[in-house]
């Protein structure tokens, strides 16, 4: 019974992940991450993804604060944040998030505030979607363990 349950949970998890892969939310980098997880670091993905979430939320908050500031002009700083986001997202395998960030960075390089605002919106949307899905995955994987 337990075994079946575990398998089912695992199947659910895989299904979720497969869906995310199909949607392009995750890419093969995530698979590489998965491969790093083994007996010696059983919660590797979980830890890494959590770190990613924490850092990204900070960055997103910074970006939002920067953009929504009336006198915003520091595109450079925004670019720095974006670089970080791009790097971490792509290393996680969060493909869509990192794509949006790239577009965001392009807009910021053009110093286009409306472009940046739009990009920020999309970014936050993508990020939330990713977070929810991954939380789900982990929840499932946790309960199966």
């Amino acid at each position, binding site marked *: 019974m337990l075994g079946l349950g575990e398998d089912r949970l695992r199947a659910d998890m895989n299904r979720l992940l497969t869906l995310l892969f199909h949607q392009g939310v995750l890419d093969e980098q995530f698979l590489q*991450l998965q491969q790093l997880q083994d007996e010696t*670091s059983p919660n590797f993905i979980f830890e890494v993804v959590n770190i*990613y979430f924490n*850092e990204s939320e900070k*960055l997103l908050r910074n970006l939002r604060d920067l953009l929504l500031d009336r006198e915003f002009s520091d595109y450079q700083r925004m670019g720095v944040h974006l*670089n*970080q986001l791009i*790097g971490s997202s792509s*290393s996680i395998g969060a493909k869509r998030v*990192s794509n949006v960030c790239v577009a965001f960075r392009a807009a910021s390089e053009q110093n286009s505030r409306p472009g940046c605002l739009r990009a920020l919106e999309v970014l936050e949307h993508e990020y939330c979607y990713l977070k929810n899905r991954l939380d789900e995955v982990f929840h499932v994987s946790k309960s199966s363990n």
Partner: protein
Amino acid sequence: MNCSWRVTTCSQATVALNLLRERKGCFDVVLSDVHMPDMDGFKLLELVGLEMDLPVIMMSADGRTSVVMMGIRHGACDYLIKPIREEELKNIWQHVVRKRWHENKEHEHSGSLDDNDRNKRGNDDAEYASSANEGTEGILRTQKKKRDMKEEEDGELENDDPSASKKPRVVWSVELHQQFVSAVNQLGIDSMNFSLNVAWLLSWLLDPFLTLSFWSSSSEAVPKRILELMNVPGLTRENVASHLQKFRLYLKRLSGVAQQQGGIPTSFCGSVEQNPKLGPLGIFDIQALAASGQIPPQTLAALHAELLGRPTGNLVLPAMDQPALLQASLQGSKCISVDHGVAYGQPPMKCSTNIPKQFPHQILSTEDVHSGFGSWTSHSLCTLGAGNNPSMLGAQNGNMLVGMLQNQQRQQQQQHQQKPSMLTEHSHSINVQPSCLVVPSQSSASFQAGNSPGLVNPNGNFSRSSVIDYSIPVPQSNNSSFVVGQLSNGDLKTTGVLNRYSGPNSISPSVSSSSVNADNNAGQKAHNLTTAFTAGIQLPGLVPNATEYQGSSNGKSTQVLDQGPLRNLGFVGKGTSIPSRFAVDEPDEPESPIRNLNHPKFCVENCGKNVKEEPHLDYIENARVGTPILQHFSPNDLMSVFSE
């Protein structure tokens, strides 16, 4: 996936750099992020490449061609774009191996190399430096490597042990580097621009054996020519080429460091105005000269201040790198003792024997020495003089020198206005000090050791003076020669860095001597150097000597010879008599000084055997350096930037 690498991670670049410096032999490759909170990745890249000669791999989410290009320009072995795939990481070993093999090849050809024991049996260390914000990646790498480490037995391909085919690589020992530098000096660094000039100056100040003789360039400092000049068996052109490249980066970095040190140009200029006439040519004069020169006044000021230990409150000096300055002051200390003996050619100069004791004040404490010159306070390092007047020796020198200096100041001021500072802007403050700069730390000790006995000889002969190498630059406006003093001490030989002299009677003929020629095309640079050197180095007596010497066609050189032992530009080692470098008899050719240097009278005494450690310790004691970085200093560190 099983790479069996030992990984050390740091989330701060400064921490990483310190780690690298502390454990130089422990790492094989460095992986670093480009954008980091505390330091620019490229800066770290440069520093690591220069100081430790490790392959550095950059990584970033920023894959723009321009940024990648920058990485290449700064010397990165590779540039990984995030997300980094595992295969890319697995391939890092190739950079380690490549470097080793190149070094082995170089070593095969080179003759005098230490066996760099980098054998790591089966474990390569990779150090990761990533920003705090890149925690994800950092941990990713860490984890990956950690788990890889667990599977050492698998003996994967990545576990390739370069040490298997390891041979000693070209180690740029101090001697070798000195030869390199002198060769380069003879040829002149091509593509000299202002920032490089300054960098030269700084490097010179920090390393007295780096004589600078831009003006003497008759041919370009290309590796081939350098190789020829160095004449080291077994050294290949490639060795020289790569070393030259590193050296250039190093200089650039120095100029960048200088640039960072804030500025008080106005204060300098102000002091210049205030001292129209050379009274005691003290710090202010030096500053004036510095200010009037093209070297960033703040840099010189900082150096000077540090050298002098900020004796006066008048000096508003930016806080320069303590270590660097200390080093510079070490140089200064060396010079000072020499000056005492040399420059003034005056018989019993009161050598301030307290120099060694108060390290920071060494330069300052030469007031008494200039009895003959009255207004001159001897400041060591180098005398820069736009000496028009050959006959500056003796008591007259003081006035003449003053005049000369003023002249020079004026010239330099003009030049200064013409040429805006060209130091490039550095937006990042360098946290990491060039602690590995070559520093003749032992010099101070040696000075201490040989201070009283040798410096001043009643008859003006230096029995145990430091080697001074003065090359005289020729300012444009007048044909005076430019003297760039270089102080080397017999003791310094022990340090290795400054150890130019391989034997008792051998004087490395390069550098200074060759610089003595009236090459006007170097005038501009000469000015730079002149002022640069003047800062903190005043050696009034030398200027005139230089001039006369240079001519070698005028008969005044005899005068030089008679008077001060070290007055001239020669390498005077401890225990050597004055270099008859300026022997008048020399035929009129650029190499004449060199020949003089090799005068048998020279006997570079290796007094430093016993002080290898002492000087360093003394130095530290006297240094009164407040910066913690000093603690990182070690004789090895101080030895050479470029040697392993």
